[in-house]
């Protein structure tokens, strides 16, 4: 428990701040579709060309080879400069890339990591299925061994950016006889392979970010299996660990920005007779102050995740704590925003329309990547050591 003050970190921060101030895109980011993908990839390319992509990734694959601390500083400065959200690159940069770095073969790393960092491709995730959500290990999408290929049949769902991504981290059952968690493989699926079809799904917010994916005799080279055949569950848990831990720094910083914007908006004189400001109401101030305390704690919880990350390469179950905190806080923050701006918030075309959109989008955080209920189970069992329930009662 100490302040890490190193001259090289200060120098890194100054350099990052300077570059970001000059290079963060000023044009608005398209909200969805191919225009959004092209925006995100172009910005990634700009960062790569200037040497800012993959701060904590190995140099051999195009990264900067720095530590998690530089990664944290980068995100802090990125937020300060008003950089766009990671958006459609989230799976590639925060899931697939880190997983390949730890579990991928030399060939897999050499082929895919530079493509991700250069902004050539998006990745998507093929974990959940219509019949396998929280009970992920019951997944049934099947991959049959045929010579040096796997032949995949089945369906995946909640695949974010599945309609825009080139590659997918795909979990498929490669051994039907083995116990549920021992017969799964983690496979790199090229979304352009014949037999892959994608159905975009519109979310309650009206945005179309995720999809159902169907596999009809899709042939994938065996060389695309990551971490060995039937070891996919272990590999996937690595990925989920990143999603739950330090991998979400960027989302947390975006949330802090959202709260600052909310406090700013509540501090402006309201249109009306007495120019009264929303924040002058004690109840409003109390709600905003509580959110402020929790957003500070979220930043501190992230620092705690980073502290653990400096000691262990693979994040532990504690990452569920910060993920659960983030999900709950995000939903409440946007609910407070809608409360404050009612009835103006009913209009989605006005200046407050973004708050409405973000309120509706926020519901995903306590569902996607593990529901808050499952996270509580995991915290109870794997952090606190409480027993699993006896089944069959």
């Amino acid at each position, binding site marked *: 428990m100490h302040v890490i003050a190193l001259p090289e970190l200060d120098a890194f921060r100054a350099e990052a701040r300077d570059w970001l101030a000059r290079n963060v895109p000023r044009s608005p980011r398209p909200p969805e579709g191919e225009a959004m993908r092209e925006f995100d990839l172009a910005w990634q390319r700009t960062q790569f060309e200037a040497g800012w992509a993959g701060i904590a990734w190995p140099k051999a694959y195009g990264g900067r080879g720095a530590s998690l601390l530089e990664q944290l500083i980068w995100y802090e400065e990125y937020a300060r400069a008003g950089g766009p959200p990671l958006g459609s690159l989230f799976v590639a940069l925060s899931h697939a890339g880190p997983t390949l770095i730890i579990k991928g073969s030399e060939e897999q790393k050499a082929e895919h990591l530079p493509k991700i960092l250069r902004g050539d491709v998006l990745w998507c995730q093929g974990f959940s299925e219509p019949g396998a959500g929280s009970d992920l290990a019951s997944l049934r999408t099947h991959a049959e061994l045929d010579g040096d290929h796997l032949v995949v049949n089945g369906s995946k769902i909640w695949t974010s950016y599945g309609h825009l991504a080139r590659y997918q981290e795909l979990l498929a059952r490669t051994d039907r006889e083995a116990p549920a968690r021992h017969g799964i493989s983690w496979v790199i699926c090229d979304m352009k392979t014949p037999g892959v079809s994608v159905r975009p799904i519109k979310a309650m917010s009206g945005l179309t970010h995720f999809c159902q994916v169907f596999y009809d005799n899709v042939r994938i080279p065996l060389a695309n299996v990551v971490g060995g055949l039937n070891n996919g569950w272990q590999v996937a848990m690595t990925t989920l660990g990143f999603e739950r831990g330090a991998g979400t720094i960027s989302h947390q910083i975006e949330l802090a920005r959202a709260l600052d914007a909310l406090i700013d908006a509540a501090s402006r004189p309201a249109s009306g007779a007495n120019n009264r400001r929303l924040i002058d109401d*004690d109840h409003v101030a109390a709600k905003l*102050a509580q959110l402020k305390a929790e957003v500070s704690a979220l*930043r501190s919880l992230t620092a705690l995740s980073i502290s653990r990350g400096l000691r262990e390469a693979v994040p532990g179950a504690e990452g569920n704590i910060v993920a659960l905190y983030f999900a709950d806080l995000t939903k409440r923050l946007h609910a407070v925003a809608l409360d404050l701006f009612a009835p103006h918030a009913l209009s989605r075309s006005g200046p407050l329309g973004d708050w409405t959109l973000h309120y509706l989008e926020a519901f995903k955080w306590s569902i996607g990547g593990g529901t808050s209920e499952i996270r*509580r189970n995991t915290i109870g069992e794997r952090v606190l050591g409480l027993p699993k329930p006896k089944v069959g009662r």
Partner: protein
Amino acid sequence: MIVDLLPTEEQTLIGDSVAGLLQKLPVERLRDQANFYGAAEAAMWDGFRAIGLFSLSLPEDAGGAGLGFAEECLCARLLGNALTSPDVLATMLAVRFAFGTGDAKLAAALQSGETRACFASADDVERAQIVDGRQASYALSWRRADASLWRFEPGAVQHCLDETILLRNATPSGKRANAEGFALRARIAVAAYLVGVAEAVRDMAVAYAGAREQFGQPIGAFQAVKHACADMAVRAEAAMAQTWFAALALDHGGGEEDAAAAQVLAIQAALENARANVQVHGGMGFTYECDAHFYLKRAHVFAALNANDAVVRAMLLNR
């Protein structure tokens, strides 16, 4: 500011030595009225002094260990674990207060155990009540960012929600020193004590939920109970992370916002966890035979120290 929020080896050793001493203060001591009002702590005051608890953060040439506020907060958390009399933490803070205001004589007297300090419930002398402080002659209180250390004469005894705490009216007597910014240190130290309470009840609830069986299995296997325990873990960890961050920030130009956030979240974590712990213990939790109520009552005492919601809100919102 970039921080490492996990203890260093040195900090772990310091914590171990304090925890070793605190083994003499198991919470069940409070079942015996003879140990109310910090009696057991008063008897082992010299032990606290001997391990350097009161002078951790003083420079070595002032008889201290030359450590930082972070180490003091790690100790405060352990004091909270054991529901140690608030006097111990108040005296730790008072030493630092006296040293910082240039009163070397008072700092030395507090450090040696010859003089002891306690918390006052409010900075306003009309409303201030003395919390424990059976052997104390100085009281520490605070406003927004500033704090005062003042001599007092004890008055009438009041019944305290926490019957293990001696609560008295007081009249100021003699000098009153003020320290700018010192309230932030007090707020964070109090938060650290409350983190200790929040963690202790989390562990107590988890231990009981893992052992108590109903319907043929430990109640902690059921989601209704497991999730209550998980929420306790989340609240404790958020409060802990924020309090450690605020403690480190204090020596690096940290502002009111981080201190206030630590205070708010630690109070909520301690109170909500203490309440949940009573519930997890069921019928036993409601009885005087189970220690759960001691934690709840002590959390209320620390939550009420110099409490002013409007001030904390203003600190958080930079107003």
